[in-house]
């Protein structure tokens, strides 16, 4: 709740403790790739990932680089480029503690945290093996129904940190995310939010409704770092498209451990020797 800090990318990566429970945005929503790269170079360790509700190359890189202790997600995939290779390999090798969920359950559990609630009900899911393997989820009868009406209750998920990229932050720490509201929920639900931005906005993002409508207030933003093209090779909303050729090459190359190591080296993503 203290004033938003403005730091550089490495300092921002340094604010994320090893072992943190960290919320990641989905591939269509402001993926903080430059920050991810900085975390890999650091390297961060034992992250517990929450994909909101899915992830792609961001989670795959962190898993492949050995930065991840566990993952909760509805899916990890590279979309049209195919499976996420390091995720798939880690699961099959039994190297990754994985908690399978489903998209609306992750959204709803974050909304529970946003509202300071211990739990949130959710329709659907009954009869799914996801539920069978989630001892932390409960089923109860809807107390407002006259006949038995089972409904799932999800405990709130409160991440330690939400990370995402955005087009602008202003000097008060307000961050403009446009229509990507899942980032708003993440920032509300998480204890802290670390954000990279394309540029500093010279003015007050909350001053007029046009921009305020898509702005996360600074009260939820702990630290901001500049990272131009900070979503690359993912895209950023109206600003730039995903680098499909790069993503396709990664999806292919990272199928083997050697290929993945070569990708890290070629992209300067190996742990730095100086820290």
């Amino acid at each position: 709740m203290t004033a938003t800090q403005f730091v550089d990318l490495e300092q921002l990566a340094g604010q994320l403790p090893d072992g943190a429970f960290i919320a990641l945005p989905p591939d269509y929503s402001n993926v903080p790739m430059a920050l991810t790269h900085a975390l890999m170079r650091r390297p961060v360790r034992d992250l517990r990932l929450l994909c909101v509700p899915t992830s792609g190359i961001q989670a795959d890189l962190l898993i492949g680089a050995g930065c991840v202790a566990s993952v909760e997600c509805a899916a990890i995939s590279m979309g049209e480029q195919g499976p996420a290779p390091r995720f798939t390999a880690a699961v099959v090798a039994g190297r990754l503690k994985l908690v399978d969920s489903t998209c609306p359950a992750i959204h709803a559990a974050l909304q529970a945290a946003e509202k300071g609630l211990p739990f949130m009900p959710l329709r659907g899911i009954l009869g799914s093996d996801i539920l069978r393997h989630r001892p932390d989820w409960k089923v109860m009868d809807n107390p407002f129904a006259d006949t038995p009406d089972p409904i799932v209750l999800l405990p709130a998920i409160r991440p330690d940190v939400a990370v995402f990229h955005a087009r602008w932050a202003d000097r008060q720490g307000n961050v403009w995310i446009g229509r990507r509201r899942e980032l708003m929920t993440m920032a509300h639900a998480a204890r802290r939010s670390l954000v990279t931005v394309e540029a500093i906005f010279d003015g007050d993002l909350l001053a007029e409704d046009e921009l305020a409508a898509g702005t996360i207030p600074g009260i939820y933003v702990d630290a901001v770092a500049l990272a131009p093209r900070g979503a690359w090779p993912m895209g950023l909303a109206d600003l730039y498209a995903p680098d499909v050729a790069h993503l396709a090459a990664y999806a292919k190359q990272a199928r083997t451990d050697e290929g993945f190591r070569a990708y890290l080296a070629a992209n300067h993503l190996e742990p730095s020797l100086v820290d």
Partner: protein
Amino acid sequence: MSTETWRREELLIAVLARLLDGVEHVAVGASSPIPGAAALLARALSKGATRVSVLGSRRHNPFTEGGRELFDCAAQGRIGAFFLGGGEIDGEANINLVGMGDYPRLDVRFPGSFGSAYLYMLVPRVILFREEHSRRVFVPRVNFISAPGTSEPGVYRPGGPHALVTGLAKFDFDRARRRFALASVHPGHDAAEVAAETGFDYDSPAAVPATEPPPPEWLELLRGRIAGELAETYPKFASAVFGKAAA
């Protein structure tokens, strides 16, 4: 390519578009180019009465409340149809998007269940679509139920499976009997081939009709307007099938 001949993808798009007839709002997941094209075709044929939301699209995705809006919208009853696939699908329409093996120790891992465990139960007309038609996919019993085909009485379930479309055939699903019935086999294939490649039991009429091919005016629409609309979200697919680059 003349409108007398059609590609396999165009046939599948036409089959799926027919299943959307009369739906007011259809949503299509990311990474689903054939369903996406079918939805856009259905919209064009409906003269705008059908609304289409293509997730992952900037131009065809109307949502402004973040990733949860699709799910909330479905629960409000505002989404009439949705497509789901599956790494495995069984004869009771259970689908598996998680993997093969003894969960959690899997031999093969799929991406994950996405929103299937929810949307399959809330969207009235869920159309199962899987191009690969093999005993690897269509199994007697899925290894992992990402989303169940049917539910016990008393479970809140306004939605569920409506049909299954594959590279070989189209099946209808009977929710009460918990069984698929072969509805048509695509041109170039026959019922015996379908039976040989399907690992679960299903009903089959004595004479199985051939799947109706796409009429020329549909092909014209597909290759023109729809291909252009599709290129924004599925550039790889649009360029491979229709030779269109994103606008």
